[in-house]
């Protein structure tokens, strides 16, 4: 079992990277300038690439180096670039109306981390992994999930919603690097490409939204009810 055989240095690096990426999702939660979301997302993806590489090194999964490079290129460079293009086209520099103010969303985000920690702790006790990095990996995975959904629910700009979805994916990807580094390579590569297609599709849809619906805010998309 990989998780129980880690040296202290490796465990420290993994924890540091995981916690730093969690903090970056709080940056996204707390700011309302669309550009800041993008920078935070890009940085988060770089951290995940670093994590993949270090898991590959310390736990001896050489194929993770490839994943690290692809993550860096796709998630770290290409996706933020594509999103930046969408943001530029939008001419909406910041989230206009807020359902939830940044400060309140930070508090809710913190609560969801506490909840995630409780769940993660229970699972790890059940699996006899309570003293390992599994607790942290699960916590980060679940809380990024919750934060992603929080962003999806509380933000209305199209780009913010795309980023919410990407945080969901980042959380899973980050957790899976630590928990299941042996996951088939094919799958991880396909998921990376899939993300790329997702973002391209979103880009096209955003263009449709602007041209045909005249808005990219979900607050004004409320014609279909009942």
């Amino acid at each position, binding site marked *: *079992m*990989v998780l129980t055989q880690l040296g202290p240095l490796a465990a420290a690096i993994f924890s540091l990277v995981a916690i730093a990426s969690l903090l970056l999702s709080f940056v996204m939660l707390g700011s309302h300038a669309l550009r800041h979301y993008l920078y935070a997302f890009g940085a988060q993806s770089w951290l995940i690439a670093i994590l993949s590489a270090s898991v590959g090194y310390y736990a001896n999964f050489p194929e993770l180096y490839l994943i690290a490079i692809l993550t860096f290129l796709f998630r770290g460079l290409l996706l933020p670039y594509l999103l930046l293009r969408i943001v530029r086209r939008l001419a909406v520099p910041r989230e206009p109306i807020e359902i939830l103010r940044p400060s309140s969303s930070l508090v809710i985000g913190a609560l969801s981390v506490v909840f995630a920690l409780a769940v993660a702790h*229970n*699972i790890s006790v*059940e*699996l006899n992994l309570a003293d390992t990095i599994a607790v942290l990996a699960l916590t980060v*995975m679940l809380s990024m*999930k919750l934060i*992603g*959904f929080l962003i*999806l629910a509380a933000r209305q700009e*199209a780009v913010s*919603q795309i980023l*919410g*979805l990407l945080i*969901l*994916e980042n959380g*899973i990807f980050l*957790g*899976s690097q630590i*928990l*299941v*580094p*042996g*996951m*088939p390579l*094919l*799958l991880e590569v*396909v*998921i990376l490409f*899939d993300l790329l*297609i*997702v973002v391209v*599709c*979103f880009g*096209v*849809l955003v263009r*449709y*939204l602007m041209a*045909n*619906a*005249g808005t990219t805010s*979900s607050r004004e*998309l409320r*014609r*279909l009810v*009942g």
Partner: protein
Amino acid sequence: MLSLALMTVLAPAAAILLIGVIRQPRFAEFVNLAAAAISFLSALLLPLLTAVRGPHVFWGGAITVDRLGAWVQLCTSIVYLLSSIYAVGYMRMLGEEERLPRFYALFAGFGLTTLVGPMMNNPGLYWIAIELTTLVSTFLVAFERASEAIEAGWKYIIVVSGGISLALLGTVLSYWNGSFVLGPRYDMTWASLARAAPHIDPMLALLSFLLVLIGFGTKVGLAPMHTWLPDAHSEGPAPVSAMLSGALLNTAMIGIVRYLSLADRAGVGQVSHNVLIALGVFSLFVAALFIVRQEGVKRLMAYSSVEHMGVIALGFGFGGPFGIAGALYHMLNHSLNKSLMFFGAGNVMRSYGTKEISRIREVGLRFPVMGALWLAGAVAITGAPPFGLFQAEFSTLRGGLAVGDIVPVIVMAVLLIVIFIGFLNHFRLMYYESVVPHPVEPKALGAWCVVPMWCALVPLLLLGFWWPNALWNYFDTIAHVLGNTQ
């Protein structure tokens, strides 16, 4: 067998390429139709062959052809063929000639991704296939470019992508759970997860199942995750609505069923089944509420899909030979019947130029043949005899009684009756209510729009009178393989 399975997906793949090369509207129509016909013929033989030779995996375990998958592929390819025929007539009415090749390329792509899903032996790749169906069909939903259509497309992709990411989390956790038994590196297949299942941690297994259920349940349209469904179904062109409802929902349901069987093996079957039953009942309840007070004709059909997915979920939730046979038979009949209903709704919508039930009147007088087919379909979809869905729902109810789930069975029966009354009341208004002050003069319909309705209704009637014994045995084997004989 492999070649047959591949044929079902290679035909639409080839169609996409051909349409990409030669961008001619008529040519695109023809190629897509031909691909659908080839898919259908191969998928028709596939269950037969699987029943004789048993399940197989190919390509180093990447592709599986088993009874359950072959069955869903058959249902999917039927809808793909019927809606391809219908699309020829319907899409010509839209007057979007120059964009038709793109439509058919996307349509074939939608057929391709829904047919690929059941063949995937790797749960992760299955997840990807489902994700791809969303991406392709979003553009089909938004095809008409009206602001409502774009809104529906946006809502669809956001809600479903968000939901389905939970299924990915469930998949990762399942793999993690298996790694305690099979070691950190192992092939991710349904079979290997099933092998590990009896020894894995039950709590984590339950958590993974619930995540997967919510995730794929979003795609299936189980309430309360169904919010995208009425919008997407009502705003897309009618052939797309038929595909969404008759093909896509089944393909997503198969994922839930496969994970349910894993949960059974892991010893958390009782809770998992109960949660599935609860979601099924809630879907029926929500559908009943919205069907009774519905104002849009296509939204009516969409909520009926929520209802039927609820019934299928109940069938698998009850389990046992009757429950599973009922659910699988329901899939086929629902695919046929819902295609018929969406074709009728599309015809009516186009010829009256409105989606509002209150402005559609005297359908039976204006369209004697098409009207009769649609009305028969409406009777069939509410589960009345002598049509196939009656048999399927009856078997599901028996399945529920057999395992002693009395309360859900009673609630299901009551809600089905409510839906029967509510649904047919709308049809009473559309057929027999006198004309509104400013009647719309309906336009005539071509043969392309009516023939597929015949093709759906005749087998539906046949399946109502005659549930072949061979199918019983086929379903029974599936029930055994799933291990749901509680």
